[in-house]
């Protein structure tokens, strides 16, 4: 007695009603996102095509710069600076000359810190996942570096890395940790890894805990060694959680500002893109907007690659996850 067309209609009506409701619930969020994210991004893009105000030589007063075309972008990407005599390659001591080195430093920090944090975080998560006396205490202790505000962390490490600080004393060295090119990069990486590995460990721990125990038991029965169980069971089943953790940390590391800004202030060898943006805002906001937009595109491209190629997906619905599993 079933009436297929009627069922279909009822189904369609239900779907429409549901999607209508969904839009009702989603709209406030979309509006909020448009205001707090969409507007600044669009505004920054508009600004990036305008010249920064310059001095009118006759009056000595600032006048509006007018349209800039792509000159704010070529300023950064091609490192071209304007002078009275025309366009020249940006000399040392200008922010324009530091663009590619800042890109390099940012990517270097990202790759090194995220790799170290993933490996160390995995180790910490495996230990925290075991059952033993004092586990709760360990988990709380591991969280402490993550709980300390970054600015405070940066100051702590800055004190330790001072010339007459504890690091040089313990090691018996005379290294300028905040000034030498590679020493200062190492210092920033050490502080970042110390601070954010717990975050990584927690995300991975959450992933570990959803792996059912019977899979391990079955493997044990079949005679798999601990290493084989880790490589063939833990790692593949952990992959989604691990990739999400890596994605989060990568995005985070690409906009790193506070640690190098506080620890190694002004040292060009640890200048990241975000530091460059903040310095440029004081010299000319429109050019800074172009730099922000470039940074945005870079972050976007890297996020895209991670999502598309590696399949990291932080916004997958539960339904999809169930299907995938």
């Amino acid at each position, binding site marked *: 007695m079933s009436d297929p067309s009627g069922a279909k209609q009822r189904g369609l009506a239900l779907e429409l009603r549901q*999607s209508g409701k969904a839009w009702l619930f989603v709209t406030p969020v979309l509006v909020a996102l448009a205001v*707090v*994210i969409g507007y*600044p*991004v669009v*505004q*920054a893009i508009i*600004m990036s095509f305008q010249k920064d*105000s310059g*001095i009118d*030589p006759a009056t*000595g*007063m*600032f*006048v509006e710069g007018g349209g800039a075309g792509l000159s704010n972008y070529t300023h950064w990407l091609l490192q071209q*600076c*304007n*002078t*009275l005599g025309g366009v*020249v390659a*940006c*000399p*040392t*001591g*200008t*922010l324009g000359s530091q663009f590619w080195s800042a890109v390099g430093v940012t990517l270097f920090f990202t790759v090194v810190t995220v790799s170290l944090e993933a490996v160390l975080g995995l180790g910490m998560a495996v230990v925290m996942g075991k059952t033993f006396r004092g586990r709760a205490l360990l988990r709380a202790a591991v969280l402490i570096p993550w709980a300390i505000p970054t600015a405070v962390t940066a100051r702590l490490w800055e004190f330790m890395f*001072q*010339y007459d600080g504890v690091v040089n004393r313990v090691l018996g060295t*005379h290294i*300028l940790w*905040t*000034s030498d090119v590679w020493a200062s990069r190492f210092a920033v990486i050490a502080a970042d890894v110390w601070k954010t590995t717990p975050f990584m460990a927690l995300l991975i721990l959450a992933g570990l805990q959803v792996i059912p125990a019977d899979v391990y038991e079955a493997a044990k029965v079949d005679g798999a060694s601990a290493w084989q169980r880790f490589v063939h069971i833990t790692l593949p089943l952990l992959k989604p959680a691990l990739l999400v953790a890596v*994605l989060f940390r990568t*995005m*985070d590391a690409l*906009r790193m500002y506070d640690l190098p800004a506080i620890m190694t*202030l*002004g*040292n060009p060898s640890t200048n990241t893109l975000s530091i460059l943006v*903040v*310095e440029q805002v*004081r*010299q000319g*906001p*429109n050019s*800074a*907007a172009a730099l*922000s937009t470039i*940074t*945005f595109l870079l*972050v*976007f491209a890297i*996020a*895209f690659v*991670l*999502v*598309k190629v590696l399949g990291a*997906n*932080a*916004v997958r619905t539960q339904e999809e996850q169930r299907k995938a599993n």
Partner: protein
Amino acid sequence: MALKFVPRATMAAASIALLTASFASACSSDNGGNALDQNLTGRGPITYVEGKDTTETGVVKQLIDRWNAAHPNEQVTFKEQSADANQQHDDLAEHFRAKQDGYDVVALDVPWTAEFAAKGWIQPLKDTFAIDTAPLLAPTVASATYNGTLYAAPRNTNGGLLYYRKDLVPNAPRTWTEMLGQCQVARDNNIGCYAGQLAPYEGLTVNTSEVINAFGGSFVGADGKTPTVNSPESKAGLKVLVDAYKSGDIPKEAITFKEGESASAFESGKLLFLRNWPYLYAQANADTSAVKDKFGVAPLPGNTGVGASTLGGYNAAISAFSKNKATAADFVRYLISEEAQQIIASGALPSVRASLYDDPALIAKMPYLPALKESIASAVPRPVTPFYPAVSKAIQDNAYAALNGTKSVDDAVAGMQKGIETAGS
């Protein structure tokens, strides 16, 4: 439902990138227009804005209390900003860009004056707003002058001093050659010879300018734009600093020193000579200091005689957007008056009035005043340019490269020249 057709991965990537890449977007600035011609005769309550008052005597509160007692209808309210110079600058800039009338009289760090003047944010002190600059130290007036017009009243100044260990060297050196000639004393005592503030920040700009100015070099011409730094004099000046660093007369770690680190090195007895500001005098004479009663102060060393200090301090300016500019002008005049400057000097802030440096009561309290007067009398303001942040960056980055050996002195000075040429473009 157009969203459906966007690949899901793209959406995910976009939303993540959007969430993570939120950067400050400053609103576009336009010029004050005719704000400079409005409210010229307005009177009433005003607001005075300054960074955190760190003086022990509470100078700003004293200044305002005294004013308020005499002006019941034109009360001044103190808006205290944070202690961080960059935040002070950005807070003022935001208010002025938005043309808000909430800030009437503002204290500007010396190097910002030209920028605020060129943006049309502060009132030129001419015609009805003219102030009497005759009793003021000439370099402080120059630091508040842009394009031949005075834009602010110097409120308090600051100059560098040479701190030296009088228990080890009997007389203060007058020149760099004399000073570095005494470094053997430092080596005999196993301490560093000389240090200043050589970390890559504003302090390095100050220290570099001082040595370049001392040898007769300059940075920009009178127009505040034309670079003049590429000269044999500038090279000679920077070379002295770089050679002293390479020879170890300036200890290796001094390249990480800001004011605080350099002060604690001197206070713990690890330095023979130190360039620092007057604030250190009281601190180094405290009981916790290892050099209590063992040091003296002198003007900075120069090439053939006393050197040239860079000027610090604050200038008081009237906002172009103030509703009560007549009251604001009176308050600015009050700030440079003898009675207000007495309060300022008693708070250990160097006064802008020459006469106060000879006041025996003040000298008894602050024995460094005669040396400071000499230092400020020969002082050269930092380059007066509306593009100060870029100019300062060009100076410090190149000086830093010369110090750590990645650039020769000649290249560094040439780089400063090129960097200043591109400033403001």
